[in-house]
């Protein structure tokens, strides 16, 4: 049965309107609104008092209270006295409680939309501010590295070991999968084109050079941005929420040295090793296509790859890996340290860390490629 509330309005005297409430005044039920009272009041301008009769009221909850609150607003607007005496005692007390603290109208936040120009201006200011913060963080990181080189940095070597393990050995399965598949895809695409010219053997050159020089480092960097950069931001963000970073600062320990430095070192040292592993996986992926689709023997494929991939390619790939490692660590740690003090801020920090790291990887790839071209290597 649906809860059903009824209201009858009577006018016992010229200046008084009586509301007789009966039935079930419960949320979700079919309840009369304050607008009905408003319509009646419009037709009876002499009414100065509103009284209640709730003798037939069977049950009530917030449904009755919201009606009474609306009625209260209506009465105060029209300067009508609302007499609560006829209401159930509980409702009287709750109404008194709800109206005890006046509504803080100035507390409501402005919801107005920004104009286009204001929005562009504000975003430009934010962009410059963000660049400034990034440069400041980078500067602090450089100072921390210099202190490390002078043997003065405060960090726990055990932490460094644990982070190195987390960012290297534990990342091997996902790096294997991604790089093997990238090698496979590159070989597939190359095979279709090279087969037209009878130059299938050059699939090994294509996969080898692409993987060793660039793709292994980029793919590993992107995997690490999602896996490790996001994790760094979430870890440091949660520490920020729990005031753990404040506790470090008050102890005179630099969070940059204690938290950021080991993470940056771990990724910078481990990324080149992961790149070597990713190279092998990518070449294996290409080899699978070469052997199964192009009838190239494993020895042939290996020899062709070894001939094509020079030391410069390997060096550029490893250097890129090192740079990407630093970028991923810095992006993750920076967003974590800039995190606000709520759960949603931690999520935002993790998202922002991944985006920043990927943008950083792509930008630095462009710079490294242009530099290599300029140097002729």
């Amino acid at each position: 049965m649906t809860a059903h509330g009824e209201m009858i309005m009577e006018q016992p005297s010229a200046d008084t309107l009586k509301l007789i409430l009966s039935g079930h005044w419960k949320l979700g039920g079919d309840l009369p609104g304050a607008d009905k009272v408003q319509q009646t009041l419009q037709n009876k301008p002499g009414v100065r008092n509103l009284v209640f009769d709730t003798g037939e009221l069977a049950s009530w909850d917030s449904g009755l209270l919201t009606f009474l609150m609306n009625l209260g607003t209506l009465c105060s607007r029209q300067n009508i006295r609302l007499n609560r005496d006829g209401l159930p005692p509980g409702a009287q007390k709750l109404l008194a409680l709800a109206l005890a603290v006046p509504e803080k109208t100035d507390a409501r936040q402005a919801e107005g939309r920004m104009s286009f120009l204001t929005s562009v201006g504000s975003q430009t200011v934010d962009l410059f501010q963000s660049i400034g913060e990034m440069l400041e963080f980078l500067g602090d990181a450089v100072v921390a590295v210099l202190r490390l080189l002078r043997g003065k940095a405060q960090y726990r070597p055990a932490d460094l070991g644990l982070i190195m393990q987390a960012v290297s050995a534990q990342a091997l399965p996902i790096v294997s999968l991604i790089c093997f598949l990238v090698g496979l895809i590159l070989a597939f695409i190359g095979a279709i084109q090279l087969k037209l010219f009878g130059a299938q053997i050059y699939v090994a050159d294509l996969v080898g050079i692409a993987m060793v020089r660039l793709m292994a480092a980029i793919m590993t960097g992107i995997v690490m941005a999602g896996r490790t950069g996001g994790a760094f931001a979430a870890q440091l963000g949660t520490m920020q929420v729990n005031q753990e970073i404040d506790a470090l600062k008050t102890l005179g320990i630099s969070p940059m040295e204690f938290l950021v430095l080991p993470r940056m070192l771990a990724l910078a040292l481990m990324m080149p090793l992961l790149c070597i592993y990713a190279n092998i996986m990518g070449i294996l992926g290409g080899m699978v296509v070469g052997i199964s689709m192009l009838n190239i023997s494993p020895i042939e494929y290996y020899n062709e790859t070894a001939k094509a991939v020079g030391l410069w390619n390997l060096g550029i790939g490893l250097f890129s890996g090192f740079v990407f490692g630093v970028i991923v660590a810095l992006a993750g740690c920076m967003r974590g340290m800039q995190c606000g003090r709520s759960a949603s801020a931690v999520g935002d920090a993790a998202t922002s860390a991944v985006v920043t790291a990927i943008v950083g990887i792509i930008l630095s790839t462009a710079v490294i490629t242009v530099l290599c071209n300029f140097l002729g290597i």
Partner: protein
Amino acid sequence: MTEKEAHITVRDLTMAYGDFVLMRDLTFTINRGDIFIIMGGSGCGKSTMMTILIGLKAPAKGKVFYGDVDFWGADPQTRDRIIRRAGVMYQGGALWSSMTLAENIALPLETYTDLSPSQIREVVKLKLALVGMAGFEEFYPSEISGGMQKRAGIARAMALDPEVLFFDEPSAGLDPVSARRLDDLILQLRESLGTTMVVVTHELASIFAIGDNSVFLDVSKRTMTATGNPNQLLAETRDPNLRLFLTRGEKS
């Protein structure tokens, strides 16, 4: 004097984490409309007791009855139905940080009622007004003080007009004046709504100010050692641990 109706009954209950038994042989009754205090020293299992009462953790042994329904013996749908008639205020308010206060209070209403958006807005306004926070609808939890977060937590707990309200350490971390105001609010709400209130706390001022009835969980004996009105317990108890707890460690 009329006998009060039992709302929640705990019978021969044992709380444990794996093999570690936290408390055993707990038997007490929470009467309808009472403010019932679960008290005890740190680590005695007060909050664990609450998680068992609100269906978040199963007891190792024993039963919890809501009216005459065996809560943990019932099927999940029945448990859900019972717990939907309960509101919980967690220690820090536990407001969802990505939502405004209005959205926090509106969520249970949107989920479990057929109210229209305008009706939900009215109920949200009422609930915030009841806790003295009218006008704060559009604020995010991070923008208000700890005391306000707790009050907003109460407003959310009351969203569905529950029959029983649970409070986990309501006055923890508040200054004495704010703690007192929160106690007053709990008293006023009980007086107006007649809702059963279960309060987990070790704050003596709150215990004596608002408690109609209580249970004392003795951490050293791993069981309850007393139940009754806190003021009466203080006057009558001969249990040295309970006396120590209720007098803040002062020697009698």
